[in-house]
């Protein structure tokens, strides 16, 4: 028997015992044929999924594991421990019991994941040796014969094995023992050869006569895209990144790349995105081959839409977002989202236009100006101390007499972000001048204590 499930394990069955014996003990045992090939394929699929979700470098650690190089990616998942928990949780959701360990080396992570106590562990950098010392030597990825040989010598743990002199071991068991030890302790490197995604959906077309006119290119884009979409449709995928390679007769290659915010399989939309970029192509003496590759494709499910009986569905703007993003750049397309900060310039941040909607909102205690100046502009003002609004102020050379004002709204520095802000305070006033224009002024400081600011006046925003 190669493997047993939890219930069988409770009955006392272990991998390795003959089937006949197990059946003699428990006649109603459910047996299934092992499918090593299927397991390997499944594991590869899982590796691709991990590559897609967690880290770019993922390899199969046959027969029952995956190895990931998560360097520089753990922060995207909230740290190493949350990342491991998330992985285990997802695996559990798919019906697998899994163990995950972060360690310095492939060898040590392999050993601790299989023979360590906790199902989830993060081995701190530099603690590898102590973490490995108590583990059995089976954990070292050594051939079965060597493990048995070492057992007859009375060595069963990694710690004592590592302390033994190398030369006699190498003489008796070959170089494997030393190599595996060094790999586990990080003394020699071990490359992780990542799995490669399955061949991308790709369509191409050769031309008998080189083409060059923009209309001709557009026409052939119109012919290639439906073929690509057909290929994507067969796989149930949508394209996130699409590359069009144009091989010129002088053996140079021109490329167009378009990206979409969500998986797309719509012929019209992709054709339009590509055709908008035609003017960036230099066809030279002509193009003899066009290749269209879906370099990043993601699964795309048909979703059930809201029935108009319940609520009117909001129009989908993702195609517009893609068109605009390919024109002005993704960075230039955004929404504002609230940030919890009293300082106006820190109270918002930009998020991608199609980011999930948040429920937070800005507090609504005070009116806020329509326009916020990028940097507060210093103004000359005269005001009664400590907390009266200015009587007049001079901004951009114009003297304005204040007719009425609201305030002060005191804002304190964020000492938890910056030590220098510990004592800082600002007093905001909304003032209206005699002509009816309304401005947002603040005094740097509370008007009483010198350490709270320069006590100078600044104009920060303009009200409608």
């Amino acid at each position, binding site marked *: 028997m190669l493997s047993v499930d939890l219930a069988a394990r409770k009955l006392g069955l272990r991998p390795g015992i003959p089937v006949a014996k197990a059946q003699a003990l428990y006649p109603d045992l459910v047996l299934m044929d092992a499918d090593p090939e299927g397991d390997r394929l499944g594991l590869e699929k899982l590796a691709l999924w991990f590559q897609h979700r967690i880290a770019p470098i993922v390899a199969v650690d046959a027969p029952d594991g995956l190895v990931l190089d998560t360097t520089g990616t753990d922060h995207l998942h909230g740290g190493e421990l949350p990342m491991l928990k998330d992985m285990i949780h997802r695996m559990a959701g798919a019906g697998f019991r899994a163990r995950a360990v972060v360690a310095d080396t492939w060898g040590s992570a392999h050993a601790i994941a299989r023979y360590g106590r906790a199902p989830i562990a993060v081995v701190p950098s530099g603690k590898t040796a102590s973490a490995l010392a108590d583990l059995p030597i089976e954990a070292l990825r050594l051939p079965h014969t060597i493990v048995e040989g070492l057992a007859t010598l009375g060595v069963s743990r990694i710690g004592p094995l590592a302390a033994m002199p190398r030369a006699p071991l190498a003489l008796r068991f070959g170089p494997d023992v030393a190599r595996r030890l060094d790999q586990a302790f990080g003394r020699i490197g071990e490359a992780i050869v990542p799995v490669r995604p399955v061949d991308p959906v790709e369509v191409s077309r050769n031309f008998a006569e080189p083409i060059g006119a923009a209309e001709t290119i557009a026409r052939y884009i119109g012919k290639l895209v439906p073929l690509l979409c057909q290929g994507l449709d067969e796989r149930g995928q949508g394209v996130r990144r699409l590359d069009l390679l144009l091989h010129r007769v002088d053996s140079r290659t021109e490329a167009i790349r378009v990206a979409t915010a969500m998986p797309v399989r719509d012929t019209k939309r992709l054709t339009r995105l590509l055709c908008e970029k035609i003017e960036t192509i230099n066809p030279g003496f002509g193009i003899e081959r066009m290749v269209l590759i879906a370099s990043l494709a993601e699964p795309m499910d048909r979703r059930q839409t809201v029935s108009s009986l319940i609520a*009117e569905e*909001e*129009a*989908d*703007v993702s*195609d*517009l*977002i893609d*068109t*605009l993003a390919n*024109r*002005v750049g993704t960075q*230039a*397309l*955004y*929404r*504002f*989202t*609230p940030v919890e900060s009293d300082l*106006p310039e820190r*109270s*918002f941040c930009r998020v991608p*236009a199609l980011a999930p*909607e*948040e429920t937070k*909102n*800005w507090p*609504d205690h005070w*009116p*806020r*100006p*329509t*326009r*916020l*100046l*990028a940097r507060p502009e210093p103004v000359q003002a005269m005001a009664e101390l400590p907390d009266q609004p200015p009587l007049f102020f001079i901004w951009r050379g114009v003297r304005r007499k204040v*007719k*009425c*004002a*609201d305030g002060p709204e005191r804002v304190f520095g964020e000492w938890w972000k910056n030590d220098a802000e510990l004592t800082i305070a600002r007093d905001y006033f*909304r*003032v*209206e001048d*005699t*002509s*009816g*224009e*309304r401005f947002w002024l603040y005094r740097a400081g509370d008007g009483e204590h010198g350490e709270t600011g320069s006590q100078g006046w600044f104009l920060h*925003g*303009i*009200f*409608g």
Partner: protein
Amino acid sequence: MTAETHKKLGLETLRAAISRLEGHSDRRRTVLPFGVREIDGRLPGGGLALGALHEVAGGGNDALHSAAAGQFCAGIAARTRGKVLWIVTRQDVFAPSMKQVGLSARRTIFVEASSDVDVLACFEEGLRHGGLGAVVAEVARLSMTASRRLQLAAETSGSLGIAIRRWRRQTEAADFGQPTASVTRWRVSVLPSAPLPVPGVGRPRWLLELIRARAGECADFEVEACDGKGRLSLPAALADRPDQEAAGQRRANA
């Protein structure tokens, strides 16, 4: 049949002929009313036409800041349904203020274009899409050709397009006199706020000038700025207040 009804019938046939010539007679014209009788009454169709381009500029110093003009447009956009595309060249919109006139940050997608040409291209793209509640663009120069393209794009998709005319220098603001293909043209200037019996700033007031309206007349209104849902209102002193009047009558009679 009186002379009055004759005149009315004549006008009706004339209007029908004009709209047939303009080529959009088959499309149902819809409007977005302001909800203020005095303003809606002056606009053909009883509100701001959807599927059309409108121009808004600030008056006085606001031609440079577009604070009041921006707030006015945010108020209009807040009363539409669906996402709002807001195209700028220099970003100084303070998002919390939009929320205070009812335009949630979740609905507003900003596009920061590098030039006026890009702004117009994105503007047209947004109008053509048709799934947006409103498309607002801050633009300085708007030629007849460009505005006609935008107007056509808006007409075909039925989207509401608002061009906020915003200049860098006061001298350039004379550009607002040049003809464009927009359906209405507004100027918003700030006025002193409603006086309060206590120290403080009252509800802001604007002078709203309807400088041009296709098939309508010019008008100007003194209004109170957008409230939390983007609605304008007339100052209480100017509005005729039938209910109060009646209440006063009742009180006098009692």
